[in-house]
């Protein structure tokens, strides 16, 4: 008898579990964004602050830029925050987004093992540096996932005139994972890798890797923010989404971004153009 | 032991149940699996009451005949004609069967018996009364709450018989019910069967043991290659078997 009561109790518990809702009753918007903004902890810092301020919950989905653009085009977001300017402008031009705003930037850095077999340390010219990597056939870990970072990296190889597809599987390794996954792989196999500075600074599994090349203007990494077009997807919460964007672009929002620190270092540099009222 | 069983086997006077589906007449019965004829144009007539033992070597088709009679298998051709013109489901409701290795449900002895009764439509007082009666008859009252899974072979077979008798069958089919039991357990089972027979139930039993047939049966059906080679009273069969096969079987010899 006891056993039967016990069994039913468990079933009942499982059911009651399912009927209670976890979500708070606050109004919310969905933000499609990139792994770099999540893995650095920026959202964990920014979003609760906005929730206090505006009483709106921002639910962030962190995926690669390619997937974020795709999900937003399907209407599965209210706001899009990514870093691939050309694609973002195309997204708006095709009518999926209302308008694109510069939000902030950081930069990409080239990392490698302390031995630095291709001898690129301290180079100020990123294109020369990656030519050396290719010439040495030193192992390079690429995101290979169509993300903003990946697109940037492919641009650099193209400028250097190196056909990495031909080297894929030999010294050019495409991980197909997020930034963190790719960093784990690079530090694991002792290969060179390109990362946004923010993710690298907050990354905990460094294994002696260092920044070897930085500061080339071609390594600039601009983030943009876009409201998904309610004319295209009627259920988009345009007002809530626009309010969130307006706050980020405002003086107070920009200062909040600038104040975000990991290990004492500023990770993102706000650069929104002052909005004309 | 023997004499006592035989003496109480004088049955006609002690029939307490009405016969509805017996006698049964089997005409040109055929059962095939693929090209193999397991039952080959078999003819047989069985009357109400008493115990009929079906004897024969392995592969003679005894168990298949039992399953055809019980409706578990469908004949390839031929007719099984039960007395009265009843629906096949009604016929099966008047029968029950005990298998060589019975399958008991994973619950107590009493619950196993109650299950069969419930499924056959017994309810309330009547069901409770039947449970008590058969537990008593099969000497299982004391261990009625024991789990079926922990029973010995003899106990399991007693539960199977109790379950089969509980539903008040007109015919009880038994497929070598004591084949894997020790002599003591066998005697226990045979005592129960004698009592069931004396209540007026028809027992139709497949057995390999001539001794068992002698102790329990009134008549013998001897089968060979899917056919009945003879159907006679037990005394007749033992004294003057009609075929060399039956002769060899009685003497416990190999027959080629």
């Amino acid at each position, binding site marked *: 008898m006891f056993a039967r009561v016990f069994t039913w109790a468990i079933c009942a518990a499982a059911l009651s579990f399912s009927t209670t809702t976890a979500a708070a009753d606050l109004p919310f918007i969905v933000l499609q964004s990139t792994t770099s903004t999540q893995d650095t902890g920026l959202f964990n810092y920014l979003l609760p602050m906005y929730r206090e301020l505006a009483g709106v919950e921002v639910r962030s989905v962190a995926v690669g830029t390619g997937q974020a653009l795709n999900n937003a085009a399907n209407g599965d977001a209210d706001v899009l925050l990514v870093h691939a300017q050309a694609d973002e402008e195309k997204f708006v031009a095709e009518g999926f987004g209302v308008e694109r705003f510069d939000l902030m930037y950081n930069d990409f850095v080239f990392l490698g093992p302390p031995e630095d077999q291709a001898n690129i340390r301290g180079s100020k010219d990123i294109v020369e540096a990656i030519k050396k990597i290719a010439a040495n056939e030193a192992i390079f870990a690429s995101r290979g996932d169509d993300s903003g970072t990946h697109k940037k990296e492919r641009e650099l190889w193209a400028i250097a005139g190196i056909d990495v597809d031909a080297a894929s599987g030999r010294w050019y390794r495409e991980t197909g994972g997020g930034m*963190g996954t790719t960093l784990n792989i690079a530090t694991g196999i002792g290969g060179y890798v390109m990362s946004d500075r923010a993710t690298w600074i907050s990354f905990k599994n460094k294994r002696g890797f260092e920044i070897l090349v930085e500061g080339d203007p071609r390594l600039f990494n601009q983030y943009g923010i876009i409201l998904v077009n309610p004319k295209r997807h009627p259920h988009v919460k345009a007002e809530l989404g626009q309010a969130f964007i307006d706050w980020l672009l405002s003086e107070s929002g920009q200062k909040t971004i600038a104040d975000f620190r990991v290990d004492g270092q500023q990770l993102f540099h706000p650069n929104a153009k002052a909005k004309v009222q | 032991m023997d004499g006592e069983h035989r003496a109480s086997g004088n049955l006609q006077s002690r029939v307490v149940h009405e016969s509805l589906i017996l006698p049964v007449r089997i005409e040109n019965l055929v059962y095939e699996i693929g090209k193999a004829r397991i039952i080959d144009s078999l003819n047989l007539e069985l009357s109400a009451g008493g115990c009929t033992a079906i004897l024969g070597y392995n592969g003679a088709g005894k168990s298949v005949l039992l399953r055809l009679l019980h409706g578990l298998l469908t004949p390839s051709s031929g007719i099984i004609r039960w007395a009265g013109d009843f629906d096949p489901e009604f016929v*099966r409701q008047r029968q029950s069967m005990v298998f060589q290795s019975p399958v008991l449900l994973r619950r107590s002895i009493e619950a196993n018996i109650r299950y069969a009764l419930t499924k056959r439509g017994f309810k309330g007082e009547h069901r409770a009364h039947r449970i008590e009666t058969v537990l008593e008859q099969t000497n299982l009252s004391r261990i009625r709450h024991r789990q079926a899974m922990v029973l010995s072979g003899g106990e399991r077979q007693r539960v199977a018989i109790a379950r089969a008798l509980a539903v008040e069958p007109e015919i009880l089919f038994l497929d070598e019910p004591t084949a894997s039991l020790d002599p003591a357990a066998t005697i226990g089972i045979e005592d129960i069967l004698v009592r069931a027979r004396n209540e007026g139930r028809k027992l139709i039993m497949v057995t390999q043991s001539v001794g068992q047939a002698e102790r329990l049966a009134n008549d013998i059906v001897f089968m060979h290659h899917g056919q009945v080679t003879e159907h006679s009273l037990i005394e007749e069969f033992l004294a003057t078997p009609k075929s060399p096969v039956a002769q060899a079987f009685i003497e416990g010899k190999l027959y080629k």
Partner: protein
Amino acid sequence: MEEIFEGFATAAVLIARFDSALFEIVELSLRVSLTAVLISAVIGLPLGAAIAVARFRGRNFLIVCVNALMGLPPVVVGLLVYLNLSNAGPFGWLQLLYTPTAMIIAQIVLVTPIIVALARQFVEDANADYDEELRSIGVRGAAKLITLIVEVRHSLLTVVLAAFGRAIAEVGAVIIVGGNINHITRVMTTAIALETSKGELALALALGVILMMIAFAVNAMASLIKKIGPKSYGR
């Protein structure tokens, strides 16, 4: 190696101080996976039993299909559910994407084939033993199915536990349809994936240790039910 010890130590610390963020994630993991497995069992056990007993055209083909579906990759399930629940998909109007409900749906799709396929096998084996006896008693149809399910209940409990194991351990489906949103759809496995990508290997491992402990607790509870079950059944 260092990370492994650190992982266990971190796990101990998290549990010892009743870390509220951890408990939120654990609760959601259990809520999602238990609900999904419960619903899958309600659908899958009778369906598996029915396929075991029924004879119909295309039965063998159906069995091969269901068995093959056991190997369905979670990411594919996630994608299929995403495409259906997306605002561009047929069920976008339900607004379920990036909610725990979407994760439950994905896990139901993932584990129901496991329950159907294994239940079918166990019930079919039992049917081979019980068929004549039950037909002799006169048990048919749904009554027969119920009897068979009750008879193999211990095996079926193991089936349900296997399904639960798969549900609570998978990450590919829930990360796509749930989005790993903090406080909303973050469960044990997506949290582990996130901490790993942040390079917080010890913390990721600690969460893994805790996930194992949850799985152990659920299995221990099931084994307890199994032990006291038969004594009380059918008295």
